[in-house]
């Protein structure tokens, strides 16, 4: 990268972490050789590069200063004037999501090691490109650069679903692409309006810019159109089950693990701090949709016969926790939501990997075809149980900490909201345990299921680190919460200054200890 001389030069680690997978993707595509040699080269390159990315993510985490809410590792080059600039930087929230992205990627590559046999170089290149775009979304400090990464992610995901997906992949890929695109273009218009008023595309400046409250509502709704689809919130969630079911395992992991988090990140980065008045005004819209989503999608999950679809609906329910927690405007709620995004990223990713393990053996996702796996796949049963429990929110797993914090936060805002959300937890336990019982326990009438072998070393390597991370987050969440404190406090200060939502919260908070 060419760097402007005026900028204080430090090592451009964010540019490196964003662009390295892109370069690797080109190498994977362009490498010469026979088909087998190219496939082997693609697999190894992808794995090595994603591991380097993980190392870089850890370096970022370790060298991050958690005491400040300011953006760190900032780089800026006016490369694409007059439209946008290459402007990167992260705060604690972005940091954790980047770490999550880099953490999940190597497992995606490993999970696709044997199961993808067709067009391997293209597949690995799509995933590497995806990594560039995901990290770019979280690292952008320019409004339109964010949009480019946000929207650019559609192309590789569309190809991943469409080329390597299941039987109804074409329908699913169209639906995924067009749904998300329609939401995004409205956000684009709102962004253009913001820039024409504020005369800057710089996110840190826009974070402190006070838009006219009348206009804020429209801008908020336009951003909402995009993030609600991405999240996804009821009633614009219908693309997600289709996309999940048809996507290959690793595609589902990335979709659930990281892409859904972009919606939540968008709310934290844009909707809340840039349109505080509108956020307060429309918080009940979010609460209402969240409650409906939690109850409705949990009930829908209960009657699914397809494993991936069930987990997809559970994702929607969990994301409703995130949206509800974000809009209660208190520390517990917002930090809980952010933790929920991290936890769900790990847990749902791991669950999709678990489904992938047995799908590779039997090539069906029908729950009814399985049963009694505890007999011949004990190790698998153990891992699957851990992640099921984490999804339910058992103490000592990451899900518990997140759900507990969100419930604390929602209770401070509204008892009814907390009641609605709690229903979701109960239903969540119901559908996850029901799934577990049908797949792992019971009798084995299908001889093919009986012949299934337990986890192989590659699959164990894939699942163990995620399991450890889930337990770490459940037992010692401070490691993950510390980077979030400063930006969340900053966000709350911003909301407090612009509007008095806290006053609505105060009486409820007073009620808190009395319970």
């Amino acid at each position, binding site marked *: 990268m060419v760097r402007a001389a005026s900028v204080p030069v430090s090592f451009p680690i964010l540019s490196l972490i964003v662009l390295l997978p892109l370069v690797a993707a080109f190498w994977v595509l362009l490498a010469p050789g026979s088909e087998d040699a190219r496939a082997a080269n693609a697999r190894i390159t992808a794995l090595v590069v994603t591991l380097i990315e993980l190392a870089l993510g850890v370096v970022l985490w370790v060298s991050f200063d958690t005491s400040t809410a300011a953006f760190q590792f900032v780089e800026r080059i006016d490369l*694409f*004037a007059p*439209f946008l600039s290459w402007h990167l930087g992260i705060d604690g929230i972005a940091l954790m999501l980047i770490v999550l992205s880099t953490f999940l990627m190597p497992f995606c590559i490993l999970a696709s090691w044997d199961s993808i046999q067709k067009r391997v170089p293209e597949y690995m290149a799509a995933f590497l490109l995806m990594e560039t775009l995901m990290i770019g979304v979280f690292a952008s400090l320019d409004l339109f650069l964010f949009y480019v990464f946000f*929207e650019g992610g559609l192309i590789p995901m569309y190809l991943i679903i*469409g080329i390597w997906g299941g039987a109804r992949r*074409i329908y699913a890929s169209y639906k995924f692409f067009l749904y998300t695109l329609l939401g995004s273009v409205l956000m684009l*218009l709102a962004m253009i309006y913001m820039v*024409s008023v504020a005369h800057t595309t710089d996110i840190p400046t826009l974070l402190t810019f006070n838009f006219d409250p009348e206009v804020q509502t429209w801008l908020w709704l336009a951003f909402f159109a995009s993030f609600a689809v991405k999240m996804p919130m009821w009633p614009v969630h219908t693309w997600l089950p289709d996309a999940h079911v048809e996507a290959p395992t690793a595609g589902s992991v990335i979709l659930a693990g990281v892409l859904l988090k972009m919606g939540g990140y968008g709310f934290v980065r844009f909707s809340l701090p840039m349109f505080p008045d509108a956020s307060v005004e429309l918080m009940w819209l979010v609460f209402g949709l969240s409650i409906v989503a939690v109850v409705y999608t949990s009930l829908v999950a209960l009657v699914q016969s397809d494993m991936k679809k069930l987990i997809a609906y559970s994702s929607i329910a969990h994301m409703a926790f995130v949206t509800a927690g974000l809009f209660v405007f208190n520390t517990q709620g917002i930090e809980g939501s952010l933790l929920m995004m991290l936890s769900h990223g790990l847990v749902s990713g791991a669950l999709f990997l678990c489904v992938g393990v047995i799908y590779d053996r039997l090539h069906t996702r029908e729950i009814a075809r399985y049963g009694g796996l505890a007999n011949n796949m004990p190790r698998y049963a153990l891992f699957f149980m851990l992640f099921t429990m984490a999804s339910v929110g058992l103490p000592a797993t990451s899900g518990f900490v997140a759900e507990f914090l969100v419930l604390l936060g929602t209770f401070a805002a509204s008892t009814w909201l907390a009641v609605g959300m709690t229903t979701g937890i109960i239903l969540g336990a119901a559908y996850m345990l029901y799934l577990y019982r049908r797949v792992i326990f019971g009798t084995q009438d299908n001889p093919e299921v009986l012949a299934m072998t337990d986890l192989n070393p590659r699959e164990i390597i894939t699942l163990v680190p995620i399991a450890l991370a889930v337990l770490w987050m459940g037992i010692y969440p401070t490691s993950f919460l510390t980077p979030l404190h400063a930006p969340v406090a900053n966000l709350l200060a911003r909301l407090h200054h612009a509007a008095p939502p806290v006053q609505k919260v105060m009486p409820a908070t007073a009620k808190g200890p009395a319970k």
Partner: protein
Amino acid sequence: MTTLAQSVHLASVEAILAGGVFVTLMIGVFRGDRSLVPLTWVVVAIMALGGFYLGVVPAAGATGFGGLYIADGFSTFLKVLILGAAAVSAVLALPYLRQSATARFEYPVLLLLSALGMCMMVSANDLLSLYVGLELQSLAAYVLAAFHRNEAKSSEAGLKYFVLGALASGILLYGISLIYGFTGTTSFTALHAVVRGHGASDIGVLFGLVFILSGIAFKIAAVPFHMWTPDVYEGAPTPVAAFFASAPKAAAMGLLLRVAIDAFGGMTFDWRQIVTFVSIASMLLGAVGAIGQVNIKRLLAYSSINNVGFALIGLAAGTREGVTGVLFYLAVYLAMTLGSFLCVLQMRGIDGEPIETLASLSGLSRTRPWLAAGFAIFMFSLAGIPPLLGFWPKFAVFQAAMDAHLYVLAVVGVVASVIGAYYYLRVINSVYFADPAPTFAPADSRTNSALIVVAAVFCSPIGMLAITPLVAAAAHAAAALL
């Protein structure tokens, strides 16, 4: 007043092209059809020479030929685009013409003649020189459309284009006569002053304006004057369709900008309603109409209608940013369209027969992976998905529209772009997702492959590095107009 010598010097580009037409025609007549290949390269060289003279001749808004002709930054920018697109159109046709047994030497000569007309169009400073340039370009184009004279489809396309084009020219002329009748002048400079004075309130001037805009809308294939486009693109030989979709669009759009903003700058309120309507109608009809198409050339025809609608958003804004956006749009659009047509030209079955239906594109990503990748880049770019370059011109015109408070137009525009994305995705679907079908013939021309690579790299995210210089050049050109 400039002398004739000064005027000719000012119009060096046109002089070179005109001289080139005579020379190449003579060579062709005496050497026959075997001179097609050398003649093509001679024509490209002549265009390059013309392009070189663009840089030599000062273009600071000087007029020549008694005010009929103007050379300014605006015309220079567009002439670069026109000459570039015309040169590419000449080169890309070679393998096609050789195979289809119509390897006649007139092809490059007609292209050169058409390019001459287009250069005059964008340098017109008078309604009459406008008409002469337009007709010169069109007459050459009519012949090109019917270039496969033994094929019924090609002849039909030529005839259809000619009849409808003649009608549009008539409408245009009628508008010019109305304007002359009510204002007493045909010069843009004089019109500008008259319209700013009292003319704007004159119903006769308004009628003339509507007729003139209709005539030009026909040339850019904007709704409701688009009907000829799919038929002509489908019937005309593919290289000719590539040419129609590129250079003449840029020239006519430039002409429209100059007429609307320069000559009728005082009636912005009046023509903005028309342009807004035409823009919305083109975007929506282009997007919806393409959905049902099974022929790739017809689909690209609807795509061009759709794109013209987007470009018109910038004109509707009527600001300098808007004009910059339109010019930027044209530059990127030419690369995307020519790239797409170059890919279509490469799609031939194993026996060399051209493949034009969408369904038979399946398997392209297996037998010709690089061609498929290039085509995918052009499709995603035309759909306006960031980070591909095709997103940024759309972005520029939307930004201009938002700045001009044309919110409804912008919202309709983005919705149309989502509808439009569907049919571009259908192409990707055929190329990548569908199960492999018959194999394709290997590449037949190194030049064309190189052109595809250049266009694809330009339209890919790497092309974003070209944003800054391109927009700066477009802004410089727009400054000449506003």
